[in-house]
């Protein structure tokens, strides 16, 4: 506890031992007590030793008071105006004390002008208190001057001040020297005065005071200067009050005199300096405010990243820059301007003004802040609050205007070049900050998107079949290459029973996680429908009905469903908006393209009406190819499509190979074609080859062997 209270103290520019504050106060109390005893108990005031010991005691007490006060003033961090007020109060106290003692007290105590200390204990105490109060106030005033001197002072100027302090002390002490060497006293005194005048000129702190306070200061400084001068004038040997001080300590008397001179000089100079500062005070205030708001804002750049917060902050600061009354931000969204963060202005008014400005400055392609007086538009505008002039500053990112800062002013005051420059600078800062926030948001979105895509890819991977059905008559191959942004491709095989094999291919519109979820649902729908319905058309009609519940209006699913009857060797197929199913037979490719709308495009009976079902008899080596547009729309660097012609040619050229080989061939060609152009959509390719079971008799056996020969 104690350690905390005993803060270590170092006094600027004064090399004194690091004495703890408590110790200082204790020491001060001891000295004042000692001095009090000395003053009240001793009567032999005329002896030289008495004089010396008196001065030494007072000196020690004064010094200890000085070190107590210096710390106190320092800790308080009093602002200059308060210091001035303090000085004013103290000098007034001195003024009234001197008046009081000169008239009333002197009479009451029978104190004579001749100045003999032969009065009773009560007057002694009173004169001690009086003397000590003057000692304390003059030390405090001196310290206040010291604080004012160092306030907002650049560089180390303590040398001048300390020199002055030394000379003031020397001058004070020299007052007890014998009259023969009065020139020493005069020399110190003159040097002190000279240094006081010199140091009084260092009043740079008034520049940092706002205009209102400057006016107060002007008033205060003249009153205080007058008080100091009056006190100084009253401080003569004829005055009873001064006599008491002189008797209390000649050094204090001299010190007080110097302080009074200091005060008179300082406040006179302060008065005139303030007077000269007043005309420029407003400009200075403005500049200071601009600087501080710009500093504040550049700090914010690193702190605010949320776009909405940032807009609000920018708007908050904007109108303070040119001392306008309101501000808002018009942010470009597509071709419109969206109003954000309006401050001190209603949304309707802000919109009216923005609209008018936009109409008046047709293209609105500003390179710098413009002023837009509203005078000519006021009748048309019908504002509920009067605004007479607006500034518009463009917010630019990458040389593109992203929005505008608007500030509006009620009074029709002239906005000058300074305002314009300040707003321009501010708009630049704001643009950088907005850009940062934009980039930050973008990176968050990107990260989230990537996570989403990971999930989507995982869903897709789990949905697609991992093994092929085992039918002797079918050679099956399937291939799926996902795009970076999951494309929503889906295919599946259904071993319905020994004689029936169903298959489906589908492509969900859109990409990413939403497509992956629809895909999962589509899988569920086909998986269950394939078990209860055989007809491909009916399955698609039913699937459409079920999907109505989940698909939003702009999503749809293209699908093709096929059913192979292994016993009767037939294929039935229906198509709901999907790519045609290809049948490669006898070196010829046929597009099986029964009509049908995509799932989710229509939920009325019309859907079933337009859906066709195709039925074909399967022949040996028939190759059925299911695919999604990821293959035909694969693009090369020139953005040309791979196309169906190229695709079908490969299929025909390789139609006697097994399904896997054909699939490999296709992918190889697609890869070669697209070079390194990134794949934008999922690629799905499913190949089913029909192999007739070799029978011991009949025509088909002959065909088979013939085909094998051909191979």
């Amino acid at each position, binding site marked *: 506890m104690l350690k905390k209270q005993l803060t270590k103290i170092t006094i600027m520019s004064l090399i004194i031992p690091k004495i703890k504050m408590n110790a200082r106060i204790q020491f001060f109390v001891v000295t004042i007590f000692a001095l009090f005893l000395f003053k009240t108990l001793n009567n032999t005031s005329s002896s030289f030793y008495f004089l010396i010991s008196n001065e030494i005691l007072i000196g020690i007490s004064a010094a200890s008071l000085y070190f107590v006060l210096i710390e106190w003033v320092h800790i308080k961090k009093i602002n200059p105006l308060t210091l001035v007020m303090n000085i004013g109060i103290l000098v007034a106290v001195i003024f009234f004390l001197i008046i009081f003692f000169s008239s009333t007290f002197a009479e009451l105590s029978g104190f004579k002008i001749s100045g003999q200390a032969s009065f009773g204990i009560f007057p002694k105490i009173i004169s001690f208190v009086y003397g000590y109060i003057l000692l304390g106030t003059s030390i405090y005033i001196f310290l206040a001057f010291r604080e004012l001197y160092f306030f907002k002072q650049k560089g180390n100027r303590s040398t001048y001040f300390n020199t002055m302090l030394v000379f003031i002390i020397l001058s004070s002490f020299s007052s007890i020297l014998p009259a023969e060497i009065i020139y020493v006293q005069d020399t110190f005194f003159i040097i002190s005065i000279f240094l006081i005048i010199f140091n009084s000129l260092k009043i740079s702190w008034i520049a940092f005071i706002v205009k209102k306070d400057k006016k107060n200061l002007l008033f205060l400084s003249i009153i205080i200067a007058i008080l100091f001068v009056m006190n100084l004038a009253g401080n003569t040997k004829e005055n009873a009050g001064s006599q008491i001080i002189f008797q209390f300590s000649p050094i204090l008397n001299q010190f007080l005199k110097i302080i009074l001179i200091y005060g008179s000089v300082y406040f006179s100079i302060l008065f005139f300096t303030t007077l000269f500062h007043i005309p420029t005070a407003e400009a200075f205030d403005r500049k200071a405010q601009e600087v501080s708001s710009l500093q504040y804002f550049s700090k914010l750049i690193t702190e605010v990243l949320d776009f909405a917060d940032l807009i609000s902050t920018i708007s908050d600061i904007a109108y303070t820059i040119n001392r306008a009354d309101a501000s808002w931000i018009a942010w470009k969204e597509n071709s419109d301007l969206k109003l954000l963060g309006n401050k001190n202005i209603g949304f309707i008014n802000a919109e009216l003004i923005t609209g008018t400005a936009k109409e008046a400055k047709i293209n609105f392609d500003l390179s710098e802040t413009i002023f837009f007086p509203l005078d000519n538009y006021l009748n048309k505008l019908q504002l509920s609050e009067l605004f007479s002039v607006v500034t518009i500053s463009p917010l630019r990112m990458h040389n593109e205007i992203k929005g505008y800062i608007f500030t509006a002013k009620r009074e029709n005051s002239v906005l000058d070049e300074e305002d314009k420059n300040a707003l321009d600078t501010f708009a630049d800062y704001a643009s950088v900050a907005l850009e940062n926030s934009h980039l930050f948001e973008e990176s968050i979105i990107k990260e989230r998107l990537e996570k989403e895509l990971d999930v989507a890819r995982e869903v897709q991977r789990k949905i697609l079949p991992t093994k092929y059905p085992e039918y002797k008559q079918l050679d099956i191959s399937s291939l799926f290459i996902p795009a970076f942004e999951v494309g929503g491709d889906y295919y599946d095989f259904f071993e319905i029973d020994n004689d029936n094999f169903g298959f489906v291919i589908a492509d969900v519109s*859109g990409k990413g996680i939403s497509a992956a979820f629809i895909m999962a649902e589509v899988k569920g729908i086909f998986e269950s429908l394939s078990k209860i319905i055989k007809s491909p058309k009916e399955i698609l009609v039913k699937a459409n009905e079920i999907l109505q519940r989940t698909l939003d209006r*702009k999503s749809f699913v*293209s699908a093709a469903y096929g059913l192979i009857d292994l016993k009767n060797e037939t294929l039935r197929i229906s198509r709901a908006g999907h790519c045609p199913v290809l049948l490669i037979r006898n070196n010829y490719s046929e597009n099986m393209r029964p009509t049908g709308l995509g799932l*989710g495009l229509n939920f009325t009976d019309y859907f079933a009406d337009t859906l066709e079902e195709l039925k074909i008899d399967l022949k040996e080596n028939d190759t059925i190819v299911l695919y999604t547009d990821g293959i035909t729309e694969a693009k090369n660097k020139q953005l040309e499509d791979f196309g169906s012609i190229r695709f079908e040619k490969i299929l025909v050229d390789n139609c006697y190979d097994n399904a896997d080989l054909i699939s490999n061939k296709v992918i190889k060609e697609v890869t070669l074609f697209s070079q390194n152009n990134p794949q*934008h*959509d999922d690629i799905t390719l499913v190949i089913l080859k029909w192999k007739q079971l070799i029978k011991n008799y009949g025509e088909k056996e002959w065909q088979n062997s013939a085909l094998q020969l051909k191979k």
Partner: protein
Amino acid sequence: MAEFSTSTKEVGEISIIYLKGYLDAHTAPTLENTFSNLIEKGKYRTVVNFNELNYISSAGLGVFMAYIEKIRENNGDIKLSSMSEKVFNIFDLLGFPLLYEIYQTEEEAVNKFIESKSFEK
């Protein structure tokens, strides 16, 4: 990746939307905005000119599905015109010709609106 833009023109009560570039999942919101703006202003007779459209993805097609219901409820329509063969094929595969009127030229589509209006009277 690719650029996409729309512009609109008013011919009497009919709005014509010109599409340019690549219409996919990323650029679809631009077209969505165009449609919402028209609907907000109560403009339900729309012709979409595909002349300068290079590519349309499934997400792009979805935009037309998103607004057709609302537009037709208000006795309006979206008519499509001037498609390249490639773009038409994409529409055709999905069966869009069964749902939308698709014309060779913008004039044909506009005239169709004018005709139907005179019938109403």
